[in-house]
């Protein structure tokens, strides 16, 4: 479904990520793990068209989307929830969801799915995003992305700033979406949590993929255990 090959990107000629290749198959949940500054955010932002690409290619459903602007990529069915969320502070929950479907009219069935998944959003339809808690904002960011009825949802550190219980809930919600047929790609620093909910993973270190395998394999790998699971 998503095929990233020899991908490099960065800012002003300094490539933060170099020659990264990975793939996501339909129906899978794939994680990219790595410490702070490993290049996860740059990688995702470049794939999704928010930041420029230096070289390499990104194919989505056999279509070359390398360097395509984000607003076009979204319409192809690739939803992106960035770590900074990029919500609209003075707009209501309902307006976010309506915009999520832009340029189409919001589909009532999809909105029901979002409110079933996140009942908190349903209770706060008229509340402005700027006045919501971090957890609620994260729900809204996911809900907004879902409104475009994506086939692949890319999430950059969905648990940033969330209490452990909320982080757990966030992954449970993603699990529900997966059962409904959504393909997931997640970048995560909270490695144990991501491992429990994904099929495969890649380890990003200093901008290059250093390890890859099923989540179970990675969980058993001594290098991953010392570096990311805090096991000595």
């Amino acid at each position, binding site marked *: 479904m998503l095929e990233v090959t020899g991908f490099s990107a960065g800012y002003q000629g300094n490539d933060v990520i170099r020659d990264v290749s990975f793939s996501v198959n339909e129906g899978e949940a794939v994680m990219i793990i790595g410490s702070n500054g490993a290049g996860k955010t740059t990688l995702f932002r470049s794939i*999704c068209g*928010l930041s420029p690409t230096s070289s390499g290619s990104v194919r989505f459903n056999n279509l070359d989307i390398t360097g395509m*602007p984000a607003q076009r990529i*979204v319409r192809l069915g690739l939803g992106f929830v960035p770590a900074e969320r990029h*919500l*609209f*502070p003075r707009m209501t929950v309902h307006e976010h969801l309506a915009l999520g479907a832009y*340029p189409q009219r919001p589909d009532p069935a999809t909105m029901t799915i979002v409110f079933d998944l996140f009942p908190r959003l349903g209770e706060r339809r008229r509340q402005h995003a700027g006045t919501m808690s971090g957890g609620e904002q994260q729900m809204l960011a996911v809900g*907004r992305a879902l409104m475009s009825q994506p086939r692949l949802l890319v999430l950059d550190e969905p648990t940033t700033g969330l209490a452990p219980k909320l982080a757990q809930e966030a992954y449970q919600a993603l699990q529900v979406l997966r059962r409904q047929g959504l393909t997931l790609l997640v970048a995560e620093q909270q490695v144990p949590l991501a491992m429990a909910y994904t099929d495969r993973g890649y380890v990003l270190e200093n901008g290059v993929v250093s390890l890859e395998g099923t989540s179970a394999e990675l969980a058993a790998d001594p290098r991953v255990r010392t570096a990311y699971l805090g096991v000595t």
Partner: protein
Amino acid sequence: MIYGLGGALNLAYGQMAVMSAMVVLFAMDAGVPALPAVGLGLLTGALLGLVLDLTIFRPVYRRQGEARVLLSLLLTLGLAFVVDGFLTWRIPFRGLTLNIGGGPIDILGVPMRRGSLLASAITILAFALLFAFFRTTALGRAVRSVIEDEQGARLVGVDPRRMLRLILIMSGFLAAIVAVTRAMVTPVTVTLGFEITVFALIVTVVGGLGSFPGALLAGVILGIVNSIAASYIGTFLSLIILLAAAGITILLRPSGLLGVRE
């Protein structure tokens, strides 16, 4: 009105208004009846917005954040001087006056000039339409999303560049409405550009940059302050009082009346 939106400021706003007024004036000189002439003026305003978007705002929108604001200020200020200079050189003493016939009308015992009434009615209508556009239409929401967070807008499939273009076109159209309604009350002369810009700037900053209800509130409050000051103290001092009122507001609420704290 649509002024501090899209992360850029347009210091040639008043000049857009004046140029639209001059088009109305020349059309009427050429024998065009008032109503079509005004229509032509509004069209000119919108067209000027489009021209600005296609020319000096191109490099502006390529930048982000502070660099965008600064470049927009620099380029539009330059344009404002050029336009002002050109107009005062070629047609120094012209001014547009739209006479609305008939005597004053009594409203609740207060005699009101027909021109003022019509100007107020048009302004209120324009505001209502603008408000409805922003709140209830999908396109209006898309424009607001760009004002709120450009990257967020792109993530929902909105092309910021097209929305910013729409903002400038609407801004030009509204500048023309400002010119026309003002001409119903006092003559719009070629030198009025900067005064219109300054008032728009004060309203925007006091209301909160990028806040539509804030701009409305600030416009009404400052309008009242201005007219009270003008009738009790004099027109010359009223601008100073206006600026003082704006200054006090900014001191008390740095992000504007309804602005969002960064």
